[in-house]
């Protein structure tokens, strides 16, 4: 694999993460516990899908085969997506939505902060834009972790269940493969081992304050770096891609 191919795959991975999580959040439209939360959720979905667009556009340029952002989002199959298993997990109750969001927000926050040092100018620009949005997302999900964890008995119980249930998907956030190796050498991508240390310390700190017990590290699910997903992704893509697939000649 050369640097160009690695960069292409790397952009796809980042874009897929944002698109799939944005898709999950957009499913929640009009289902929020309070109107303010509906606004926040659509806003975060909007940020994430906006970031995905920039990343797909860049991926398409790097690839240089004339594909567009929509080709990359709408015309790849299940096994060609590289988003994390965590990002595709169903919304569940509000505690699950928030726990999933919090784990990813903490990751994104430290990740994009590091990406600001990338030697790739475009990724650097993307990171500068993303970090502003992600800082807000993290503040939002952190506040909800505290409210739910230290709110009522019921909310505490629900959040603990959500955290326990999602924990096995968090290990994958930090997995690295050949793509990372090549790009780390070039000074383009951050080393995810460094992000992991920061992630663990931040997550521990917030969970402790929210009176939630941090789960023991047990078995961690894996697969997305190779395009192996949970059963959920197929349905997400079936829904998302249906018009493009049903009317291949149409422009929208």
């Amino acid at each position, binding site marked *: 694999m050369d640097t160009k191919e690695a960069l292409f795959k790397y952009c796809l991975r980042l874009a897929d993460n944002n698109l799939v999580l944005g898709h999950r959040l957009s499913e929640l439209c*009009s289902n929020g516990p309070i*109107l303010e939360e*509906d606004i926040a959720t659509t806003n975060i979905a909007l940020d994430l899908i906006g970031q995905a*667009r920039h990343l797909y556009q860049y991926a398409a340029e790097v690839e240089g085969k004339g594909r567009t*952002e929509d080709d990359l989002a709408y015309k790849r199959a299940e096994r060609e997506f590289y988003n994390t298993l965590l990002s595709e997990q169903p919304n569940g109750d509000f505690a699950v939505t928030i726990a999933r969001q919090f784990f990813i927000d903490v990751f994104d926050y430290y990740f994009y902060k590091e990406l600001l040092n990338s030697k790739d100018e475009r990724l650097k620009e993307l990171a500068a834009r993303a970090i502003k949005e992600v800082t807000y997302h993290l503040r939002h999900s952190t506040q909800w972790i505290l*409210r739910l964890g230290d709110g009522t008995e*019921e*909310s505490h119980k629900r959040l603990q269940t959500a955290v326990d249930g999602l924990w096995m998907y968090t290990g994958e956030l930090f997995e690295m493969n050949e793509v990372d190796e090549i790009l780390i050498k070039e000074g383009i991508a951050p080393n995810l081992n460094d992000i992991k240390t920061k992630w663990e310390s931040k997550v521990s700190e917030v969970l402790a304050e929210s009176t939630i017990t941090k789960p023991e590290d047990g078995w961690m699910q894996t697969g997305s770096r190779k395009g192996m997903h949970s059963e959920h992704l197929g349905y997400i893509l079936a829904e998302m891609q249906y*018009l493009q697939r049903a009317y291949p000649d149409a422009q929208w």
Partner: protein
Amino acid sequence: MENQELEILFQQKIDREEKIEPKDWMPEAYRKHLIRQISQHAHSEVIGMQPEGNWITRAPSLRSKVVLLAKIQDEAGHGLYLYSAAETLGVTRDEMLNALHEERAKYSSIFNYPTLTWADIGAVGWLVDGAAIVNQVSLQRTSYGPYSRGMVRICKEESFHQRQGYEIMAHMAQGTPEQKAMAQDALNRFWWPSLMMFGPHDSDSAHSAKAMRWKIKRETNDELRQKFVDKTVQQVEVIGLTIPDPELKWNEEKGHYDFGEINWDEFYNVISGNGPCNKQRLSHHKKAHDNGAWVREAAEAYARKKQKSVAA
């Protein structure tokens, strides 16, 4: 001062085109009329998120997806400041939501129609928001200050929504035969319900006369409906679609389009709860609200704990 005297002063103030503000004296009927109208308007913004939200996950391009998301986010924001405007009249958001759930308060009947294809998202943005704008532009001059100022803000965003809808329709009307058929079908289904959005004829409108005298409304239902038809016909022609009304015709003498009679049986039938989606929309809203109860309780409990620890 006697109520009668106060009422005379109140009417004089309105006739001088001065805004009524929350702390000013106002007749109870004026307050009630406004609460009914503003909360109905707020509920419409919020319930409207459902038919539009129905297509976010299936939007056919990333660009159309983010534009739709941004639009729905705006609608939710409008709902929020309309609830706040109504709250200045001494009603709480909880009371307004209860009234909605108990079917004492209404929302725009247009949202009781389903969005069946992607073209419907175009039709909703173009026709439904288009009709809403005609009404809201007029309401910018409404006599109640907070409502008027809210409308100014809302109008700025609504004109962007209408363009979003029209762009989808224009694109599809010029697309493949299937896309064009979808666009025409959406226009066929949404045209008449959009005209119904302006409400009954002035002669049959229960609230119109008072609302006009108090300058809550500045133009009648029929005047607003005519404005909407006049501006929309041309837009339809530009993109090569056909309005489903054989009686639609330019009237040189009046300088307006004549159009056919609305099916008022359908109008009253949908208003009274028998539209295709009335039950679905309301039960969706109730369910989301009920499912969120534990979240709101948690937020309140947490806020109380924090307050205590600050006080201690």
